[in-house]
């Protein structure tokens, strides 16, 4: 069989810099050692010195299945590859699809690591017993709320559920209610948007079910639907719709707004609102990572997971993707409300496992049509 060559899209302008660093490392290192890499973190304009990773003389390779998009995470993966010398190959797709692929592959999966957008995808793979247990010191980096109970996946970065509103028609101080329940009032008729098939939204509903109970949640869903809520396939068009004035309010994750503002400027006519009353409407969701038990590169997988929880990577999420870092001591983006100042809700993400119950409820009220 002939070998067909194709190009990998791993290169970026920063590659050269890292190659230089790495080749320098190779010259110096005959045995594993800890090196220091000077890194410039672009947004915060702070130079930090960090312990990055151990560089091995024969670094080997790593296969990552990513439910997170290439645009978001390839730069940080490139950093890891450059600093460690490990050849990282990534397969990108939607989290649900990547989870399905992993389940189909079973023990023959080439993947070492699954990096998912939401706990649902991680849970599906964990349930099939495909994740290895993570060491306690890795898990210790992150609040136990943001990891699996069995310790086979760990949160990497966080996003908060928020209300996105149109700045022309809404004054958040006086127009917006303090919790989600307020949106069932008839005054919101024709002004709301949601994305009921979105994983984060469904996680929020799962959280609603566990705090409010089935009946109240159902009542809320029906109330929102009675207000002729606009149905969107996902979060981004909802944010765009809020800015355009197509809707006044949408239930979304916080970071899309910041990307829109980055693209369209400060004139973008939408902003985020954190419900002052707290509750599941302010749920903090995570993107997380787990190691595939049958993966061939266990050491490199652990290096990668450690790297994602390192201050460099955490700083990247804070600065470049507008997410909440989950590790102590990393600065958040200046436009974000600190996670500690968010209204506290007492929910472990690993409790939000009854996805099917949520889907059934959404189906029952007709939200998925």
């Amino acid at each position: 069989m002939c070998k067909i060559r194709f190009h990998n899209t791993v290169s970026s302008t920063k590659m050269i810099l890292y190659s230089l660093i790495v080749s320098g490392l190779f010259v110096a290192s005959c045995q594993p050692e800890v090196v220091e890499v000077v890194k410039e973190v672009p947004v915060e304009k702070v130079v930090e010195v960090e312990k990055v990773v151990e560089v091995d003389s024969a670094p080997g390779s790593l296969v990552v299945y990513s439910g997170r998009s290439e645009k978001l995470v390839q730069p940080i993966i490139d950093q890891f590859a450059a600093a460690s010398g490990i050849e990282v190959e990534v397969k990108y797709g939607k989290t649900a699809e990547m989870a399905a692929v992993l389940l189909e592959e079973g023990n023959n999966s080439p993947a070492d690591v699954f990096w998912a957008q939401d706990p649902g995808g991680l849970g599906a793979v964990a349930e099939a017993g495909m994740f290895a247990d993570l060491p306690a010191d890795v898990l210790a980096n992150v609040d136990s709320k943001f990891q699996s109970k069995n310790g086979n996946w760990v949160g990497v970065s966080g996003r908060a559920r928020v209300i996105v509103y149109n700045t022309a028609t809404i004054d958040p101080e006086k127009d917006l209610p303090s919790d989600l329940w307020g949106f069932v009032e008839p005054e919101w008729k024709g002004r709301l948007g949601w994305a009921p098939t979105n994983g984060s939204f469904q996680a929020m509903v799962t959280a609603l079910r566990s705090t409010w109970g089935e009946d109240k949640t159902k009542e809320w869903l029906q109330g929102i639907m009675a207000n002729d809520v606009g149905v969107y396939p996902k979060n981004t068009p909802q944010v765009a719709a809020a800015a355009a004035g197509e809707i006044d309010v949408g239930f979304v994750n916080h970071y899309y707004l910041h990307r829109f503002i980055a693209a369209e400027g400060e004139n973008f006519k939408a902003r985020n609102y954190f419900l002052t009353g707290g509750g599941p409407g302010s749920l903090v969701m995570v993107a997380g990572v787990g190691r595939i038990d049958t993966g061939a590169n266990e050491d490199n997988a652990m290096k990668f997971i450690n790297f994602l929880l390192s201050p460099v990577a955490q700083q990247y999420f804070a600065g470049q993707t507008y997410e909440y870092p989950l590790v102590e001591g990393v600065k958040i983006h200046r436009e974000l409300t600190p996670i500690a100042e968010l209204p506290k809700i007492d929910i472990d993400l690993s409790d939000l496992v009854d996805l099917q119950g949520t889907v059934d409820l959404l189906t029952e009220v007709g939200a998925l049509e």
Partner: protein
Amino acid sequence: MIFFFRNTSPVKVVLWFTGALVASLLLLPIGYLLLRASEAGDSIWSILFSYRTARILLKTVYLAVAVTLGSALVAVPIAWLTVRTDLPMRRLWAILTTLPLVVPSYVGAYLFISVLGPRGILQQWLEPLGVKELPKLYGFPGAFLVLTLLSYPYILTTTRAALMRMNPVLEEASRNLGDGPWGTFWRITLPQLRPGLAAGGLLVALYVLRDFGAVSFMRYSTFTRVLYIQYQSSFDRTGAAVLALVLILLTLLVLFIEIRTRGRANYYGGHVGAVGNPIQIKLGHWRWPSLFFCAGIVVLSLVLPASILAYWLFREINITMSYSSLWMSAWNSLFASGLASGLVLLASIPVAWLSVRKKGRFAILLERISYSAFALPGIVVALALVFFGANYANPIYQTVYLLLFGYLIMFLPQAVGALRTSFLQISPSIEQAARTLGKNPLMVFRTITVPVSWSGIAAGIGLVFLTVMKELPITLILGPLGFSTLATSVWSAVEEAMFGAAAAPALLLILLSSVPMASIILRESLN
């Protein structure tokens, strides 16, 4: 079997063998679905047999029928205008009107909403004129509009090919019998185009069945959307498999309708084996309305999306873009699409040829099977191949070979449809004449069949090329590690609302696709 082969020419054996092989490979997804469906729990059955599902099923069929008719209404006039009339800049229109096929439906839908949506650009322009509200876009109108504008090229390509091969004597005869140009068009041309129309319409209908992007953006519930929810929300592969089998049943229904449309007539010209120079119809004072029609369709389906993309690109021109990765994606797109169109063409030849020349049950079955996977959403086909690839064909798993195989399963019907239509229009006596002149079947195929049916073959290659260019789920899931194409780059950027980053690969996608289309269309008009 030995008896069977004894007096059969080796070429025929090869044909049957390849045909049967292709067909059996195509059955892989169905095998996978049956396997998964057999593991399904009770809950899926209650979903399947619910009133709601029945309603969604009806809505799906309704949309498929409407979009197919709508596409025919757009495509047939354009095909006729660009082939048969003295429309100014015919070739340019022919190229431009094919290109909307490369616009991924989720991108198209997003762009349409940003222009025609409730608070879209159009509304903002019309606001000062006192227009408070645009007609409702969400729901059926939006889904219909986007799907029609993005999938009419299916019918356009097959119909153009059929028009070009049609024997003009028939039209002359009709004119001679006292029919005007319009009467001739309705009574002679259109019925002659039936196989081409049916083949294209089939592709449109099946495309609507499997589309996810446009319907989810436009808030129109179809069966495929329900199926995706199974994957997305419940991570339920078995339930999704049951639903996918229903989609296959729907496909069978559409195929049945198409067979009825196909009719039993032979479509090779009545007596002269040759295709004459068609009469070029002078448009006269219809010239401007015709131009306006073509231009309107091009503006709606191509210029509008492209200019919004261009606007995004310029708005964020300062964003550092990685040109090298853009070029690599472009190269990968061209490479995969080119290779896939070649492979699909090769595989479609025996299937199409057998179904046209050997009208036996097995040949028909073979051709029907080739359509079986076409209405399946890409994710289903991809997962089927992941299952077989990872567990039973590991050496080619996550290589370009399995990826190409995935494209083959998805896009074979497009080539079979186009090829079949053009083979139908070759009188068998032409091939027989070549045989009696001392050429073996392969040479006859090469020197007679291929050149004579070139317009159909080109249409098939073009369709496959364009659709592979924009293909997403199969490329993402089956592509080798790190394999990114323009389509995946667009998706990855749009997914994260990075529209500036999406604009460059999306525009490049349209631009690169136009090159092979232009060369195909320019070449056909030289012949």
